[in-house]
């Protein structure tokens, strides 16, 4: 392989990986704090994407300016879902199963609402066509902007979790729910905040995603699976692990697409998933801890 081609593939893989990273942070947070796997995660990504598409085509608003709108919408959906649906499930032995079923149900509601509101067709937002050339490499404009925006949002999230009281409380609950509760952390409120925050991050990813790829109401599950795979690869609850996992998935998809075929690239998330479960059950972050 030509070295410049190699570099180009690395660029393409990292750019997509950045958005995968942002996608997976939401599912990672919710899973880490609440032990809930949010099956509606990809559908929230889709919903925010459609909101962006809709406002963009109606009023030609710059999609980046719609990041707060997309995040706010999914944040509210997440908050209400936790407050009125997930929060009411009995916290007994079957809690994981019933929360899976509940988020599966939410996923269906979101898909069908999106179909009602925006139709069933694939849609794209044509914002920033073409690419910038730097040192002989093509940086697709939309992908680069999405990557940078994802980086900024990820940094803010990290700062929030690291340095604010609310963030510390979230981390405390994810480490030890009972311990946090003894120290005066309101468990119920933290759960609502985490789920809403996770959903909000899905919204941000959706706004960025629609700038790059076509979206349709039924595409959510593919992104739920990718986010889930990234979380497994990177390691649950690990920030750097998740980002590494996302980059690895992005690179793996691009390189298998180039060297093998697009069909294999489509399934590479599953392959990585299996390999990591067999070799590194704790994900990449487990490797550092050992």
């Amino acid at each position, binding site marked *: 392989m030509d070295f410049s081609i190699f570099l180009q593939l690395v660029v393409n893989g990292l750019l997509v990986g950045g958005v995968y990273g942002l996608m997976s942070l939401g599912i990672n947070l919710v899973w880490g704090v609440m032990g809930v796997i949010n099956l509606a995660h990809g559908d929230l990504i889709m919903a925010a994407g459609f909101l962006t598409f809709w406002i963009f085509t109606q009023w030609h608003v710059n999609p980046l300016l719609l990041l707060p709108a997309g995040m706010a919408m999914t944040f509210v959906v997440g908050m209400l879902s936790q407050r009125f649906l997930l929060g009411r499930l009995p916290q007994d032995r079957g809690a994981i199963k019933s929360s899976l079923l509940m988020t599966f149900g939410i996923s269906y509601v979101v898909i069908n609402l999106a179909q009602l509101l925006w139709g069933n067709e*694939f849609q794209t937002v044509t914002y920033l*066509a*073409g690419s910038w050339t730097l040192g002989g490499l093509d940086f*697709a404009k939309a992908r680069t902007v999405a990557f940078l925006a994802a980086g900024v949002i990820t940094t803010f999230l990290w700062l929030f979790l690291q340095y604010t009281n609310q963030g510390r409380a979230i981390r405390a609950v994810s480490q030890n729910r009972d311990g946090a509760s003894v120290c005066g952390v309101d468990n119920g409120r933290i759960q609502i905040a985490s789920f809403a925050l996770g959903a909000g991050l899905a919204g941000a990813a959706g706004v960025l995603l629609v700038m790059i*790829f076509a979206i*349709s109401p039924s595409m959510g599950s593919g992104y739920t699976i990718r986010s889930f795979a990234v979380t497994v690869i990177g390691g649950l609850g690990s920030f750097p692990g998740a980002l590494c996992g996302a980059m690895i998935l992005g690179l793996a*998809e691009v390189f298998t697409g180039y060297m093998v075929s*697009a*069909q294999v690239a489509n399934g590479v998330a599953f392959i990585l998933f299996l390999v990591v479960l067999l070799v590194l059950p704790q994900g990449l972050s487990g490797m550092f801890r050992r």
Partner: protein
Amino acid sequence: MGRNVRILLVAAVALLMVSGSAVAAEKKPILIGTSVSLSGSYAASAKYGLEGYQLFVEQLNKRGGLLGRPVKLVYYDDRSDANTGVQLYEKLITADKVDLIVGPYSSGVTSAVSTVAEKHKMAMIGPEAADAKIYMRGYKYNFQGQTQAGRYMLGALALAKAHGYKTMAMLAEDTAFPKAVSEEVVKVVPEYGVKIVFNQTYPKGAADFSALLTKVKQLNPDIVFANSYLPDGQGIIRQSREQGVDAKMFAVAVGAAEPEFGNLGSTANYIFGATQWAANMKTKGNPEFVKAYKAMFGRNPDYHSAANYGAMQVLDAAVKQVGSLDQNKIAAAISKTEMDTVYGHFKVDGRGVQVGYASALLQWQNGKQVVVWPAAVAQGKAILPTPPWSQRK
């Protein structure tokens, strides 16, 4: 007083019910069943097709229906999925007991449901199945109502030959129709002096084509063919720009014929697309069809609308000729039918393969679709070569 009123009301309702059922017994509607890809990746094109069916049924009822009975279209969403299509046609035939069936959208779904039609001995015209292989399996009740896949890219190939383009990269979705187009192109390229340097498929629903296009860019072909539907066609063109794939000619099989392709903005310009029909073509009844369609749906028909409308025209003529709903006779009548529909000259060979319908080619020029081939229906001249992406706004 109140009581009297109530009795009167009950009497009125009873009367209405009796008279209603009397009418129904007299004129039970003829049910025409189909599945439509209302969701999934074929939804945009399939919706145009459905509207073609709906317009014909509406007009048919205004003319007094079929065999003196009103006609009703029964349809369900197959989600662009062949297995769902099979289940729905089973349901339409066995549970809904439809009298006639017409085909779904796409070769993939039609190929699957053609087995159901054959099993139940129901005549079916597939107006959206371009893959001729579906009709080479010795079936007796299935007829192709769409231009053969092999003809889709002939216009683009003719232009390529005229401009002396030599090398081609081809990408195709790995489902029935796009693969059939690729196979047919591979067969005929030697006649056009074109060599295929890249020929790969991608899975349905793929969104990221950057890896494939990186390879294409390396090979630097004169021509890029995307044998695609709408969302993937848009994705390939848009990402060709991002990856700086500077071919002299880009052509897509399905997608560019859709007005929605224009959502790409300036990126859509210079792109060629196969179309099997255009509003200005002088097919029989075409201007009236376009006008009625616009009035009913508030938008222009695309070629899928016309193909489905044409299929209904043929079915209607066959049933009228037979004078009953006898499926064997209807199938025999369709196989012998040669008629001018809004879509063109309908004629199938002994296997059911469409040999009458032809293909045309359009190009996006300044945000508008312009038919550029064949000369007989061209609205303008093809602009070639496509300027490099870096020189475009």
